[in-house]
């Protein structure tokens, strides 16, 4: 690199911070379209499968202030082969409960919501099929699982090795359906000017949304602009287009003015995806010294009837530990549920709960310290691809974490420590998440006075990209932060992939660095290092994966150490303290990175103890569809978090040496909690979340 690292690494305050704390940063719903806004509210199907037999909007249409009621009978036809649930109001068929069957547009939000009750809908419905089980006879193997991974991987003779192993673990773990639930509900505001559409929208990458709108409304890419400067969290649910963007655009076209659609919290449970439930059987075989001879990880999960979403649940098992004989499989059931989607570390999050719980069970069976067991199974190279690691420091994470947490001298026996009525235990688990990079374009312009404008369609969903990308740009340009103006979150800007798969900063940052280098080279070569009076504009970017991705295995790693307390009278669980150490490559901003890590880890605690979308097997809906009943961790649920990282840039991963840190924190976290829970109580809970009810179940008292 030709620049000196001045800003990268520093704990720079968020550039968008002052506006966010005061509430003046405008999120999608809060943008000013320049004209009065009409409000949209939706009627949702109350059945899971069937068809609409009667739909009478007349009472709603007659209400004062109602501008239009869109139904499958009158809604504009969408073009193209839109996937999944995007062909909104295009047919009377119903595929999941909560599907939009009509939409009301009105002068105010109060009127729109009230008018929903004025639309009469009747259905011919079939009995819903919504319950996942491992013994369903309709499980099938998808062609591929998410992110292009193979559905199965089979190496060696797993069954033979298990039969011959000195010690084995064979256990089934379950994780429930979960909902992303960013605090900002999905919102889309659409305005048409002739045949050009502007959409202010809550999403993780404007370009992704543009392509679906272009398809659906048969437009040219230049005719759609999606603007999303601030996004109130996403965690995957805002990665792809959902019915809300389609509906807002359709309705705005029908009523001829700006229309906004903000989902209700309840609608967040049916219209924008969820994490599939999983049933995972893990079998481990080891020799008496704890060296794994066989790993088998078989996953059963669900998808919807109208889309195949195959979560890559077992893929972390393909990289984490050495073993000569290995098998991972994914099987799906197509159910009458809304389309599932990605949710923070899709795959790794539920998968690592199972694998890392099983490793703890193996450590217990062997009588080996669980930290040591992991270290003994550290693979020298990627155990399935047989290529070297670009960098891997899991062992250092484990050792450093053990040190910081005070792991040494831990009595391995369960239920040995109490404080008052609390049963106290500690647990450990590893974390891992792939490092990838996507294609990204970038434009940097400089004026004669040395002001740089960096443009790229990245997005900041809370990751800190406004700040970190500015830091990277300033360093790459060799200037101070105040000389750089960053523009992100607008599809008019040079194309880039969305914030997802922890690829954001790796991709956008690389594009910025490469473009900046190009700009500096041209200044040098063409202008003798001087700024031309009328400025210079350079378009550049990065082509996609690192050139080393084919020859190396690239992953972030980490280790979590957790203390858990369980009230012996009530089974209530607390996590008073935890230590996590990460190998995340270059840390661009010490402040925002720490937030990413602790946010991910805290969401893992939330998953371990609280989160569960409860479906009614007969009526077919998610019953606890709000934030009073779908529990996420509150402030009181999160204790002292000791977050740190190794300072180990990954030179092969990308131009900055970073590994992507948005998701690593949640992986393994739930297992660390469950393992500590076992240590505290002697009870092994293999189905999340770990509730007081399950404490009594495991005690045999229910």
């Amino acid at each position: 690199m030709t620049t000196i690292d001045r800003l990268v690494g520093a704990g720079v305050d968020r550039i968008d911070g002052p506006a966010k704390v005061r509430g003046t940063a405008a999120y999608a719903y809060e943008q000013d379209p320049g004209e009065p806004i009409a409000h949209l509210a939706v009627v949702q199907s109350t059945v899971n499968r069937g068809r609409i037999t009667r739909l009478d909007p007349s009472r709603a249409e007659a209400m004062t202030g109602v501008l239009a009621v869109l139904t499958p009978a009158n809604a504009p036809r969408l073009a193209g082969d839109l996937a999944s649930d995007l062909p909104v109001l295009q047919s009377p068929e119903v595929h999941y409960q909560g599907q939009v069957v009509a939409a009301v547009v009105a002068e105010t939000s109060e009127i729109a919501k009230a008018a929903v009750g004025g639309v009469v809908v009747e259905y011919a419905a079939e009995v819903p099929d919504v319950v996942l089980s491992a013994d369903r006879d309709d499980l099938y193997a998808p062609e591929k699982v998410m992110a292009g991974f193979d559905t199965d991987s089979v190496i060696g003779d797993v069954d033979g090795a298990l039969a011959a192993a000195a010690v084995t673990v064979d256990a089934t773990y379950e994780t429930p359906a979960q909902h992303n639930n960013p605090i900002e509900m999905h919102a889309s505001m659409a305005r048409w000017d002739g045949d050009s559409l502007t959409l202010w929208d809550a999403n993780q990458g404007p370009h992704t949304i543009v392509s679906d709108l272009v398809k659906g409304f048969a437009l040219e890419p230049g005719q759609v602009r999606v603007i999303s400067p601030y996004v109130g969290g996403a965690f995957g649910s805002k990665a792809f287009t959902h019915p809300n963007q389609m509906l807002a655009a359709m309705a705005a076209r029908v009523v001829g003015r700006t229309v906004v659609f903000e989902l209700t919290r309840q609608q967040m449970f049916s219209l924008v995806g969820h994490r599939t439930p999983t049933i995972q059987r893990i079998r481990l075989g080891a020799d008496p010294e704890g060296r794994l001879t066989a790993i088998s990880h078989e996953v059963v999960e669900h998808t919807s009837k109208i889309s195949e979403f195959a979560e890559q649940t077992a893929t972390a098992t393909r990289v984490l530990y050495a073993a000569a004989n290995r098998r991972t499989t994914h099987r799906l059931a197509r159910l009458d549920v809304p389309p599932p989607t990605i949710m923070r570390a899709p795959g790794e999050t539920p998968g690592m709960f199972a694998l890392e719980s099983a490793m703890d069970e193996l450590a217990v069976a062997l009588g080996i310290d669980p930290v040591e067991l992991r270290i003994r199974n550290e693979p020298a190279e990627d155990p399935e691809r047989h290529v070297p690691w670009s960098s891997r420091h899991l062992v250092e994470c484990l050792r450093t974490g053990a040190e910081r947490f005070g792991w040494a001298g831990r009595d391995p026996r369960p239920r040995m420590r109490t404080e008052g009525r609390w049963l106290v235990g500690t647990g450990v688990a590893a974390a891992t998440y792939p490092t990838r990079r996507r294609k990204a374009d970038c434009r940097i312009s400089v004026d004669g006075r040395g002001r740089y404008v960096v443009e790229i369609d990245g997005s900041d969903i809370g990751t800190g990209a406004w700040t970190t990308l500015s830091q990277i740009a300033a360093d790459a340009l060799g200037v101070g932060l105040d000389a750089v103006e960053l523009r992100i979150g607008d599809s008019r800007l040079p194309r880039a992939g969305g914030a997802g798969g922890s690829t954001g900063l790796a991709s956008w940052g690389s594009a910025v660095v490469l473009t900046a280098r190009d700009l500096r080279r041209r200044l040098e070569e063409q202008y003798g290092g001087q700024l031309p009076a009328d400025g210079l504009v350079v378009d550049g970017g990065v082509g996609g994966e690192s050139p080393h991705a084919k020859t190396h295995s690239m992953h972030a790693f980490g280790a979590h150490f957790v203390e858990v307390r369980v009230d012996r009278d009530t089974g209530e669980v607390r996590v008073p303290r935890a230590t996590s150490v990460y190998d995340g490559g270059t840390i661009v901003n010490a402040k925002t990175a720490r937030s990413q890590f602790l946010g991910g880890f805290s969401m893992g605690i939330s998953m371990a103890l609280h989160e569960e979308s409860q479906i009614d097997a007969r009526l077919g809906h998610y019953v606890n569809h709000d934030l009073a009943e779908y529990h996420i961790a509150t402030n009181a649920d999160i204790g002292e978090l000791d977050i740190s990282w190794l300072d180990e840039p990954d030179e092969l991963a990308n131009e900055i040496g970073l590994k992507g840190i948005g998701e690593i924190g949640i992986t393994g976290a739930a297992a660390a909690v469950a393992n500590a829970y076992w240590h505290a109580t002697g009870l092994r809970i293999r189905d999340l979340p770990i509730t007081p009810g399950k404490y009594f179940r495991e005690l045999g008292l229910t």
Partner: protein
Amino acid sequence: MDTEITLRVDGAAHPLTVDTRTTLLDALRERLRNTSPKKGCDHGQCGACTVLLDGRRVNSCLVLAVTVDDAEVTTSNGLAADGQPHRLHRSFVEHDAFQCGYCTPGQVCSAAGMLAEAQAGWPSHVTADLDAEDVDLTDAEIRERMSGNLCRCAAYANIVPAVAAVAAVEGVRR
């Protein structure tokens, strides 16, 4: 049913016509375009809409606008007197006590209201001695008292020190 009211928000009076069904939150966001308070659930379950109503923190999504036409409403933006950031604003930025920022104005208002409650000697669920004269805002106290504000980015571990720093300055943390 339309009704005339006057909303006093962040020091300015706004005469306006609202539907009796309009909540304070929607009156602020949709009528006055004051989008400092956020909507995260519309049912009192997340705290994103927290404002100060006559100095007390409330969930503005469950308050009907017609019921407050005689009250003073303060949003997080309104805490910035004369455009100067409030101490809580500075402390939140300094401690990186947020990520996406969507729950944040509600957290800030909640913290402001909570500090006043502590100053008045109000106990909380985790206060061991209900009869104690003064409140000491320990980390546990802050966590409990701030639990009406959900943060899905889970900035909790930074919100606590951000509030603690201000509590110390205000004399409610030893």
